[in-house]
């Protein structure tokens, strides 16, 4: 048992901190730290800066741009980015499809897709959920039917985050409707400029356009775009979702948000009730951060620590709780959510209600928190 970082890890952390705070443009970092929306170009610019330094996809195989880091070093990388306000490399590319292609893709697929995926030359979208397949993802119905060397895809995907920016979409499609539902699914990569692909915006309760429906009408997809074997898509899906949950607890960003809130709270920080809420949240975040550290410290042998399932559940609860505190501190100023930039209300206060509403999503995506409780009770507690 030892609390301190080793000198090597401390130097590693300092080097990252230095890079993140000096090489990523201040305007981009301020946008993140103040909770404003990043433009597509800002996200791309930040990822390319990281990628040029080998910092965009460190968890990939080294052959494809990954780094030979320990779990703890990956954790430090992730935390330091959040702390500095560096946009996390686009999850659809870096955490989702990249590792899947690296693990299951053909040599041709790896060479064709991995470099541009790491560099965000291709913006990937996710085509998993459907109107009738949410937590029960394997119930998906979008179909792919063989026609010569091609597949013809018909159906509808939904909750496709930032699909309006997407160049390509990785999808789960039903390629065999006759077998057990998990066994008739395949993974297809689809160029979103293909005729028959239509992206329709979904307006959310925060007024933003973050997610979309993606419709497929007789979309012709070359057979070479299937990742892995025919009807093995559920294997790729489970691999991807397992990666999705890791790092989904935004401890560093939530800590940063709470610290910023303290600085903005002004005289309200004299209110004992406000102080108590802040103190309780700081403690809760410390407990979460320490749990994350315990998990990474135990994961070096490749086996995930059982407590990892706590991270998504608790991390999203705290993310939501901090946004709730921001809303309460903003009070009536939060009503100016959709006022113009000439509003006399401060920006953080105007953003507080949309952010609070938007973050309700956090306990739903990435395996809803009820799914996490199911995992804990079944897998860990044996119930």
């Amino acid at each position, binding site marked *: *048992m030892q609390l301190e970082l080793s000198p090597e890890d401390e130097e590693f952390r300092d080097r990252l901190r230095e890079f993140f705070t000096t090489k990523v443009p201040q305007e981009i970092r301020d946008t993140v730290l103040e909770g404003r929306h990043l433009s597509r170009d800002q996200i791309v610019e930040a990822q390319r800066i990281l990628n040029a330094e080998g910092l965009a996809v460190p968890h990939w195989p080294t052959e494809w741009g990954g780094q030979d880091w320990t779990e703890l070093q990956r954790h430090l990388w992730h935390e330091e980015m959040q702390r500095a306000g560096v946009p996390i490399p686009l999850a659809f590319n870096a955490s989702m499809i990249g590792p899947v292609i690296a693990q299951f893709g053909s040599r041709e697929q790896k060479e064709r897709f991995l470099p541009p995926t790491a560099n965000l030359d291709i913006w990937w979208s996710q085509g998993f959920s459907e109107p009738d397949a949410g937590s029960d993802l394997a119930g998906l119905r979008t179909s792919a039917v063989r026609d010569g060397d091609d597949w013809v895809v018909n159906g509808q995907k939904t909750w496709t985050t930032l699909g309006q920016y997407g160049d390509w979409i990785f999808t789960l499609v039903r390629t065999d409707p006759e077998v057990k539902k998990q066994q008739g699914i395949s993974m297809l990569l689809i160029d979103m400029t293909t005729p028959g692909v239509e992206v329709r915006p979904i307006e959310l309760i925060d007024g933003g356009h973050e997610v979309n429906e993606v419709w497929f009408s007789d979309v012709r997809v070359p057979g070479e775009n299937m990742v892995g074997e025919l009807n093995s898509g559920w294997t790729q899906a489970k691999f991807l979702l397992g990666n999705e949950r890791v790092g989904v607890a935004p401890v560093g960003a939530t800590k940063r948000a709470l610290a910023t809130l303290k600085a903005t709270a002004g005289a309200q920080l004299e209110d004992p009730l406000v102080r108590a809420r802040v103190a309780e949240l*700081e403690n809760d975040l410390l407990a979460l951060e320490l749990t994350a550290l315990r998990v990474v410290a135990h994961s070096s042998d490749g086996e995930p620590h059982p*407590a990892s399932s706590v991270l998504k559940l608790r991390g999203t609860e705290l993310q939501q709780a901090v946004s709730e505190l921001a809303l309460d501190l903003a009070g009536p100023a939060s009503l100016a959510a959709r006022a113009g930039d000439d509003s006399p209300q401060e920006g953080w206060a105007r953003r507080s209600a949309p952010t609070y509403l938007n973050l309700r999503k956090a306990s739903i995506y990435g395996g809803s928190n009820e799914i996490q409780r199911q995992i804990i009770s079944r897998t860990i*507690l044996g119930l």
Partner: protein
Amino acid sequence: MDFTYDDEQQALREAVRGLLASAYADHDARRRTAGAEPGFDRALWGRLAEMGVLGLPFSEADGGVGAGPVEIGIVCQELGRVLAPEPYLAAVVHAGGLVAAVGTAEQKADLLGRLSAGEVLLAAADTAPGSRWGSQADGVRASVSDGAWTLDGVADPVMGGESADVLVVTAALPDGGGTGVFVVEAGDATRTGYATADLTRAASITFDGSTATPLGEPGRDLAPSIATISDLTRIMGANQALGVMQSQVRATTDYLTSRKQFGVTLNTFQALNFRAADMYVSLELAHSMVDWATMTIAGGDPVAVADAADRVGLQVSRSGRHIGQEAIQLHGGIGMTAEYAVGVGTAHLTVLEQWLGNGGHHLTRLAGRVDDHDLVDAV
């Protein structure tokens, strides 16, 4: 950074667990021992001494083993796991800790040597009736006349005080001179023993011109040392609470998979399983904070230790109440009975928390410091 135990630490855990299992293999044994005089197992205490467990915190020069906080934490976790009523936290960690912190070399060698050997039992008398968790003595006053010290006043609750041979008493020094620490032979005070909610023994102790020996330099204000030892005791109490919570979560999941109602086991019902899952979340969060606070002690900075004590105190309060209450609820009626460990575990968590500082106390202290820092960093 490392959150794992080394081989020696694992061996210590196994040894302590094995010894405790021989005494408290089932809850009935614990119930019998705690319910009879003196409220703990003297033979077991002797074996803990032989194993070196009683001397763990003290230097070899003082007759101890010179182990670190992680080792002491392991012992406390194991004691908590079986709800052992032995006064380890009170006699060794708290009272022994005070002697080690402020005593002279001779005092330490004498008292800590005998404590480590199981020859003498100490108890710390530092709480005035009706007071809360401060390091200022306000129930007992010290007087000096011709170099002879005497104490007057009442200390209550004194955990482990009923059986103690020697009392380590915090007392207000004359003329507002701060707080001193004194040694009083138990026979020089009047005490009334009682059991707390979980059958742990405590006492109300009255000093009426009791002959006292100052620990360390006579007349010196020792409030900072007293506070630090209280913080160390809090962190070790959190270790003990962790052991209790681990047992309760395990007992609850065992119960859910074995108890049948409506012809099926209780784990058929998702409402119950989800509540057990939330108990597990609370347990892991507490576990992380306990490990962290314990490692913080090794850094040796009293300010950091005080902060860690507040933080782990708050977390263990939140987790302990959640787990303790839910453990009873998910067991149903059996959880209410004294013959079943799970509800007694909740009583034990309750006693530990109100003894060492409850969640509200720690939150108040933390709330007072929120503008001292930007971020709270783990490392």
